[in-house]
Each structure stands twice: as structure tokens, then as C-alpha cells.
């Protein structure tokens, strides 16, 4: 097994302050592990916790808005809630959950034993965890971010003394996001190098599963989207804390620069969030239809097309800002154009299921739900390209409805489909199907009850980000329905958590291949051994495992082969990279530095830098393998 860790020169083996940790079991091993599967479970479980936290924030929001003149929260707290709900869902749920799935299954699906940079992989997780805790620690100073997840300047960038947003909310927000951006870029690089360098023999790019392709695409999007937003966030921090004038119109700056930089990241970010969902669904639908994905290449290339055109539509978030008719025309038409590759995928998914042998498992239900809900979200998305009518819808609940249909009806449904589909592989036991189906139907009903009426209330003129509304606007009944729906969603998520516990107790063994799967992860034991594959598989086809099990007759109908290949035994010892303390130490330096930046306490910053340097140095000189493994 070759990973980049192995490429260290022999001299490094003997140096190092401490020996590398060796344990791969027990709770301590989770702190030092560099096994991509364990890291994935850490990513996933942490993201799930943040999902519940952000969900609770959403419930508070719905409680406040249940009736006119709500008094559950003050305006200040409400503004913190919607800011943290959005920020959490995007940066602490959507992105890391995609990384969790990618981390676990990308190496398995391309027949690799780990990702290219195992220690950097772990570093990414620690940065994400510490970044999330850092941002949430702002509540201890009642200074939670309250500038919105988009953090528009000059509201966020006005010097603290001028009081646009008193307290340290935007400082926690900018510094936290800058650090988490580092984590995102490390995992993006890791995925790109892994896909390019570590595929099993015969796994050509156009034999890769769609999920791997989508992660590959979003890795590039992440890599290029993070720099502009990082620049914008640094500028906001500098304006706010040191009186620079990046966005100060009184000194001739144009605050719209912030929006351009933010959405130059923010729009690709939408695709960073949704493409993994599309990938997961593209794995589930063929398995439970017993048919190959309809138009594999079209799905891949429309994904790539979205990846490119996604850079040319950012200003559709800014139609009301006064860009002028030429820019509006260009971005309007580009937005219409991106609807086409997205629509193509929907038809391809329908074509996949059409004529298949459909098994309505929970995973399949969530995937079908994804197609339906995502279609609705796409159709309301096309409305944004109709620039003149967008002037009525932008910044209303219509937009809130739209992107929840894309990101909840799309991404979150896909995640849940992915949980039910891959749970047996990850933990060796099935996730309860009966509870799962109730979980699905409650979520579908709750979701539509919450976000369906938001279309209407938005079209009837209710703006976003308002902590209250008056009587007599005609919004009361719709808001009550939405709040009711939110409770139904909460119940369905609770059922999912119960299902996890109940299934873990029952432990219905999954076996290697419970769903009659098509891709490489189903060829190995559940859960997979630390080294994944006893023998690196040789790939001859797209859906290689499927073609080992089935063939087609002259009519193109499915015929089962009778000879399953016996898995061969490993040839001697498989060398895996050793665990390491240092990613955790290095990452710990960042939040400490963060407090230094937020409170402008330079000695704390110094401590953070010192921790960071210790982590980095010890990482660089630690022996590349533990003694015991020699």
C-alpha cells in the first residue's frame, strides 16, 4: 500500500520527539486515528450533532414566527438564531457531511486502501470540529454572530465603535469561517489527489462511480471557491477591527465588492452542497432498480457543466443591488442556462428507474423523494432567472422556500438515503427499515408542510430575516402551518436517532452485500477491515461488481451468474500508516489564535501560534511509522 505518508525518507524514521501512537482500538484511538473510515465516522457524527443544534435553532425561529408580534426571543437573539442556523447548516452540516460520505466511500469505491494524505485528512476534521466549537463558544460572551450567514458589508464591516453590530459576533464569524476554510481546502486537495493517483488498476476515470465523480468535482469547486471568500472575510475583519476601508463607501469603497467576492464563493458553494447529494442518489437508484444508471456519461458531463457554469451565475443573488441592465441580462441568461444540465439529470434518474425492478427500501424512498423535491426546488430556482419578477421574490420567504427545497428536499434527503444505504457497510448491521419508512414519510410530510407554505407567504410579500411581523398582513395561517411542519420534521429526525439506537441493539447482521450492490465497497466485509481490500481489485467495467454477478441475454435482460468469486487471501502483512497526535495539536492552535484575533489579545494569539508551530514541527519530524509496525 502506498500513501504519501510512506514517501518520507528513511532518515525521518529515527528522529521525532515522541514515538507515534500505535493503538487502533479504544476511545483514545479516535483522537489519533488516520484511518479514513474512522475519520469519516467522526465527521459524520459531529455533523449530525450540529444538524440537531441547527435544527433546534430552526425550531426556535418557527416558534417565534408562529404568530404575529412573537415574543419568544428578542430581535438580537432572533438575528443570532437565523445567522447561526444558516452558518451551521452550510459549514458545519452540509459540507462536512459530504466530506464524511466522501471520506468513507471514495477510497472504497475506487479500490484504494486510504486517501492520499491520511494525516492531513485528520487535520481537516480537527479544524472543522474546533472551528465549530470556536464559533459556538461565542454564545458564552452573548456575542453570537448576528450578521446573517452571508455577512454583508458594510453591516458586518463597520467599525465596532460605530455600533452597526455591537459585540464580537461578526468577529467570531469571520475568524471561524476563515479557519474552517483551511479545513475544507485540505480535504478538497486530498480528494483530488486520491482520485487522480490511487485508483485500482482498470478503474479509469469513466469507470468511476458517479458519487466519486461528484466529490471529485466539488473538490475542485471548493479549492477555487474558498480563496475569494477568505479574502472577503479578512477584509471584513480588518475593516471592523482596524479601521481599514475595504468596504467603507465614505472613503470611496464600494460595498458591493463584498457581495461579488462572497457570491463568487457562495454560488459554487450551492453546488458544493448539492452535487454530493446527486452523487449519492445516482448510486442508490440503480441498485434498487436493478438497472444501470441511465446515460452515465451525460450525468457525469452535466455535473462537470454545472461545475463550470456555476462560476458564471453568482450575481443572480444580487439582482436588486443595481448592477445595470447589461449585467442583469448576462447573469439572467446564464442562470437559465444552468437549469438545463440540472434538468437533464432529473430525466436521467427517471430513466434509470423506468422499466426497472424497483425495491422501495428506505434509501430508495429518500432518493425518489429527492428527485421530486429537488425538481420543485429547481423550478422555483428558474424563477430567479426571470430578473424583473425576481425583484419581487428576492429576500422574501419565497427564496427561503426555494433553497430549502434544494438543500433540504435535495441534499438532506440524499444524506438520509445515504445513511440507510451505507449504514450496513459502515457498522455491519442494518438500520431498521420499518422505523426508516416512518422516518421518511414523516420527513416528507413535515418538510412540505414547513417549506411549501413559505412559497406562498413569500409571494404574498413576507421578507426574510425579520424577527417579527404585524397583524393583518395575511401571513398568520401560513406561518402556523410552517411551524407545525417544523415539529413534524423534528419528530422524524428524533425517530432516526431512535432507529440508530434500536438498530445498534438489535444488530441484524448485514453481510458483505445486503442490497445486491454494484460498486466495489460491497465486495468486502461490513464493516471493512482497516486496510479495506485484502487484494486490490482489478476493474474491468463500470459497476464492476455487478458485472461479476450478472450478465445480459440477447434481449438485454438481466441474467444471474452462478459463480461468485471467492475472495482471495491477503499476501502477507499489509502495511498501513500509523496514527498520529500532531494533526490534533496543530488544529488546536487555530481556535486559540482565533480568540486572540477576536479579542485582540495578542498574547493569546502568540500562544495559538506556538501550539500551531509545535504541532507542525512535531508532525514534520515524527517517525513515519510506529516501531511496532516494522
Amino acid at each position, binding site marked *: 500500500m502506498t500513501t504519501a505518508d510512506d514517501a518520507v525518507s528513511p532518515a525521518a524514521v529515527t528522529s521525532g520527539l515522541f514515538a507515534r501512537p500505535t493503538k487502533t482500538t479504544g476511545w483514545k484511538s479516535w483522537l489519533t486515528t488516520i484511518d479514513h473510515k474512522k475519520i469519516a465516522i467522526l465527521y459524520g457524527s459531529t455533523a449530525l450533532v450540529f444538524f440537531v443544534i441547527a435544527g433546534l435553532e430552526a425550531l426556535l425561529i418557527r416558534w417565534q414566527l408562529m404568530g404575529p408580534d412573537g415574543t419568544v426571543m428578542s430581535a438580537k437573539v432572533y438575528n443570532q438564531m437565523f445567522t447561526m442556523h444558516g452558518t451551521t447548516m452550510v459549514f458545519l452540516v452540509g459540507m462536512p457531511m459530504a466530506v464524511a460520505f466522501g471520506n468513507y466511500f471514495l477510497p472504497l469505491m475506487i479500490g484504494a486502501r486510504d486517501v492520499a494524505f491520511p494525516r492531513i485528512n485528520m487535520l481537516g476534521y480537527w479544524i472543522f470540529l474546533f472551528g465549530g466549537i470556536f464559533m459556538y463558544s461565542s454564545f458564552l460572551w452573548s456575542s453570537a454572530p448576528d450578521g*446573517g450567514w452571508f455577512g454583508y458589508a458594510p453591516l458586518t464591516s463597520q467599525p465596532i465603535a460605530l455600533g452597526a453590530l455591537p459585540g464580537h459576533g461578526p468577529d467570531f464569524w469571520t475568524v471561524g469561517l476563515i479557519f474552517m476554510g483551511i479545513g475544507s481546502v485540505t480535504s478538497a486537495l486530498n480528494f483530488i489527489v486520491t482520485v487522480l493517483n490511487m485508483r485500482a488498476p482498470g478503474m479509469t476515470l469513466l469507470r468511476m462511480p458517479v458519487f466519486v465523480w461528484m466529490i471529485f468535482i466539488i473538490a475542485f469547486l471548493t479549492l477555487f471557491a474558498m480563496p475569494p471568500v477568505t479574502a472577503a472575510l479578512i477584509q471584513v475583519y480588518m475593516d471592523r477591527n482596524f479601521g481599514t476601508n475595504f468596504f467603507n463607501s465614505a472613503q470611496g469603497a464600494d460595498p458591493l465588492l463584498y457581495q461579488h467576492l462572497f457570491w463568487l464563493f457562495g454560488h459554487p458553494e450551492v453546488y458544493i452542497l448539492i452535487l454530493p447529494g446527486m452523487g449519492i442518489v445516482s448510486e442508490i437508484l440503480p441498485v434498487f432498480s436493478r438497472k444501470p444508471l441511465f446515460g452515465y456519461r451525460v450525468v457525469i458531463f452535466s455535473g462537470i457543466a454545472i461545475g463550470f457554469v456555476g462560476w458564471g451565475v453568482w450575481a443572480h443573488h444580487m439582482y436588486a443591488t443595481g448592477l445595470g441592465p447589461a449585467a442583469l441580462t448576462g447573469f439572467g441568461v446564464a442562470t437559465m442556462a444552468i437549469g438545463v444540465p440540472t434538468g437533464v439529470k432529473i430525466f436521467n434518474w427517471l430513466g434509470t428507474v423506468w422499466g426497472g425492478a424497483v425495491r422501495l427500501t428506505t434509501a430508495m424512498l429518500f432518493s425518489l423523494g429527492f428527485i421530486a423535491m429537488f425538481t420543485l426546488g429547481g423550478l422555483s430556482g428558474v424563477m430567479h432567472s426571470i430578473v424583473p419578477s425576481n425583484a419581487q421574490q428576492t429576500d422574501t420567504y419565497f427564496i427561503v422556500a426555494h433553497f430549502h427545497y434544494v438543500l433540504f428536499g435535495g441534499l438532506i434527503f440524499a444524506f438520509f438515503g445515504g445513511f440507510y444505504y451505507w449504514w450496513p457497510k459502515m457498522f455491519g448491521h442494518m438500520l431498521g427499515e420499518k422505523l426508516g419508512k416512518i422516518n421518511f414519510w414523516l420527513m416528507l410530510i413535515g418538510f412540505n408542510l414547513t417549506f411549501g407554505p413559505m412559497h406562498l407567504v413569500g409571494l404574498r*410579500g413576507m421578507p426574510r*430575516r425579520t424577527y417579527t411581523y404585524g397583524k393583518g*398582513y395575511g401571513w398568520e395561517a401560513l406561518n402556523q402551518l410552517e411551524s407545525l411542519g417544523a415539529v413534524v420534521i423534528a419528530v422524524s429526525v428524533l425517530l432516526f436517532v431512535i432507529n440508530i439506537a434500536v438498530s445498534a441493539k438489535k444488530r441484524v447482521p448485514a453481510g458483505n452485500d445486503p442490497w445486491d450492490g454494484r460498486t466495489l465497497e460491497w465486495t468486502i466485509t461490513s464493516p471493512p477491515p482497516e486496510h479495506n481490500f485484502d487484494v486490490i481489485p482489478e476493474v474491468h467495467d463500470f459497476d464492476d461488481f455487478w458485472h461479476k454477478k450478472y450478465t445480459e441475454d440477447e434481449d438485454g435482460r438481466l441474467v444471474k451468474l452462478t459463480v461468485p468469486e471467492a475472495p482471495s487471501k491477503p499476501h502477507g502483512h499489509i502495511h498501513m500508516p500509523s496514527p498520529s497526535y500532531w494533526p490534533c495539536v496543530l488544529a488546536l492552535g487555530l481556535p486559540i489564535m482565533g480568540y486572540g484575533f477576536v479579542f485582540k489579545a495578542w498574547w493569546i494569539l502568540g500562544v495559538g501560534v506556538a501550539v500551531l508551530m509545535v504541532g507542525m514541527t512535531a508532525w514534520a519530524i515524527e517517525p513515519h511509522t510506529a516501531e511496532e509496525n516494522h
Partner: protein
Amino acid sequence: MKTLKWRQRATRVFARATLLGASALLLVACGDDSTKEQNPLEPKGDVASRQIGLLKFWMIPAAVIAVGVLSAVVIIAIKYRERPGNENPKQIHGNSALELGWTIVPALIMAIMAVPTVALIWDLDAKPKDALEVTVYGKQWWWEYQYTNLDIADPAIDFQVNTANELHIPSGRPVYFTLKSDNVMHSFWVPSLAGKKDVVPGRDNKVWFIADKDDEGKWFYGQCAEYCGLSHADMRLKVYVHSPEDFVEWARHQNEGWSAERVARAAYLGITDKWGCSSCHFLGGTNEDADKGIADGSGANARPGPNLTHLGDRTSFAGAKYDLTAEKLAEWIFHAPELKPAQCDKTLGESATRCKGMPNFEKTGMTKAQATEIAEFLLESEQ
């Protein structure tokens, strides 16, 4: 009941659910009193009508696609369900003609949509002829309006007029707005009359709308649509449509300041002096230079609080959040931050001019009786 087949039972449940859903919809449709609706779906005037017309045009293909895809999902999930004894499915890997088709058809639909969209973008961008011009200042958290070319309406009117939150416009004439802010971003939005346009510091964005003769005597509601900080939700506005003649009358009246007798009473109540109201609010007739500034436009956007000269003529206050009554106004003067969140916290110092929003006068020693007196004085419509 036991004899009922599951099908019958299911039908019953379905019927009940339908009934429940229908009544919920009915509730939605006519549940509330509609006095304050700001509903773009019921557009008034040319601009809003044409904007929403495009949306309705798109609703036709959107509905067809939505119904098509949703029913396809349900149908294939049921029709192709795996059943014992079924033949194994045919392995179809794709179909180039079909895939080309469902790439080209959506592209065509989009191309058709693009034509009226692009046309309307350029149409609405052009400045209308003979428009009444108003400069809108987005404040935290209220609206200031400065009427800059009233003389086009009536050559005898050679002054400008300044007011807050409640915008008055004549029917039948386009109103062309220049949007300004020296603080943060806002978005100026009167849904019944036009889509929103952001108020961006350092940029003079333009937007216009027109009200019809039918709309005379009506109020239209709106509010800030870009998150602008703490009290963003309370930054509302109203628009009143006059007949062209009435509008000129209204403008004339707005130009009149307080009489000398009224100014003296204001001083007696401490409005211009003790409580320092005039340090944040323009009060016509109390300061000659300020009066001149408003009349020639140089004094617009000079104060952190709204012009209170003709507060008695208005129907609402506090960013149009509350209906204007003496009682509520007194409460407001007494402890405003409890009615509408304001930022006057320690990081800003206690100085009222550093406040965003109306400060708390109870804390500066005002009594409830004094607040009531001031409120009653401000609401007297007799000048």
C-alpha cells in the same frame, strides 16, 4: 367497523385528510383581515403588473413540468415495483436521441423565457418621462423622503419637501426614486407597486413605479427587504396615493413650519431644549437655517431621526410599525426601546446621538406625564 376493508378505511382517512387540507387552505385564503397586505400577487400600476406577469407566464411550463415529474416518480415507483415472478429488467444504459431531446427541450423553453425577460429588464431600466423625483434615504431603521422636483408638478412650487416613512404620491404620474444610504444596505420595497431595489451606500440606485387613478385614496404597505441590523423587521413604510390636485395641496402643507406660538409651546415643553428632541429630529419653524436646508434640499438626511413637523398628519410612527395614537406615542417617547429594539448599549456610550433607534427617555428623567404632554402636543394638527 371491523367489517370495513382496508381500502374503505383508507378512502375514509383520505377523505378526512382532504377535508382538513381544504379547510386549512380556506383559512389561508380568507382568514385574516387584509388591511395591511403587501402582496405582489395583486399588483397595482404598470411596473408591478408587468413584473408579476412574467412570473405568471413561467408558471405554465413550471406547473406542467412539476406535475409531469412528480407523477412520473409516483407511477414508476408503483408500476415497476419488484414482484415475485416478474421478468428481470432490461438493462438499458442510455438512449442518445432521448437524452438529446431532454436537453434541447428545456433549453428551448429557457430561450423562449429569455425574450420577454430581457426586454423587460431594459424597459424598466429606462427613466420614465415627466416623473416626480424623490430621494429616499435608508436609515437605521426608518425611511426619509426628500421630494426634489415638485416644481414640475406645479411651477408655483419652488421648494422641496421632506417627510418620513409615509410616502405621498400623485396618481397617474411615474415616481422616480434615487436611493441613498450613509450607513448600511437597505432595500426599498412597496410590493403592490414595484419590486425591490437595494439602497447601497456609495451608489445612487434608481427605481420607479406608478399608481393608477383607481388607486387614489388608498394606502400601500411596504418594508425594508435587506437585512440592516437589529430592528430590520421594524423598518416598514406606507404609500398614500393622492389625486394630482390633492398632492399639490399636501406638498404645500408640508412646506409650512410651526407657528411662532407653537414654537414657543414646544420650548416650554422642553422639546427644543431640555429633552433635545431637535438634535435628532427636524422641527419646521424652530430653526431658520434648517428650514432653508429642507426647502433647497441641502439639509436632507441631516438628522438621525425623522422629521416631526407634521407628525399629526401621519397615521403611523416608529418606522410605520405602530398606528399613531397619543397613548402609544406617549409610551414611545417614554421608553421607545421597549416598543422597537434600539442599540444604545454601553459599547456606544449613553449619548443619544450615538444611538441607533430612539433612546429611552425614562432613563434621562422624563416622567410619563411629560411624555404624554409632548405626545399630545406633537399630534395637534392645528399649527
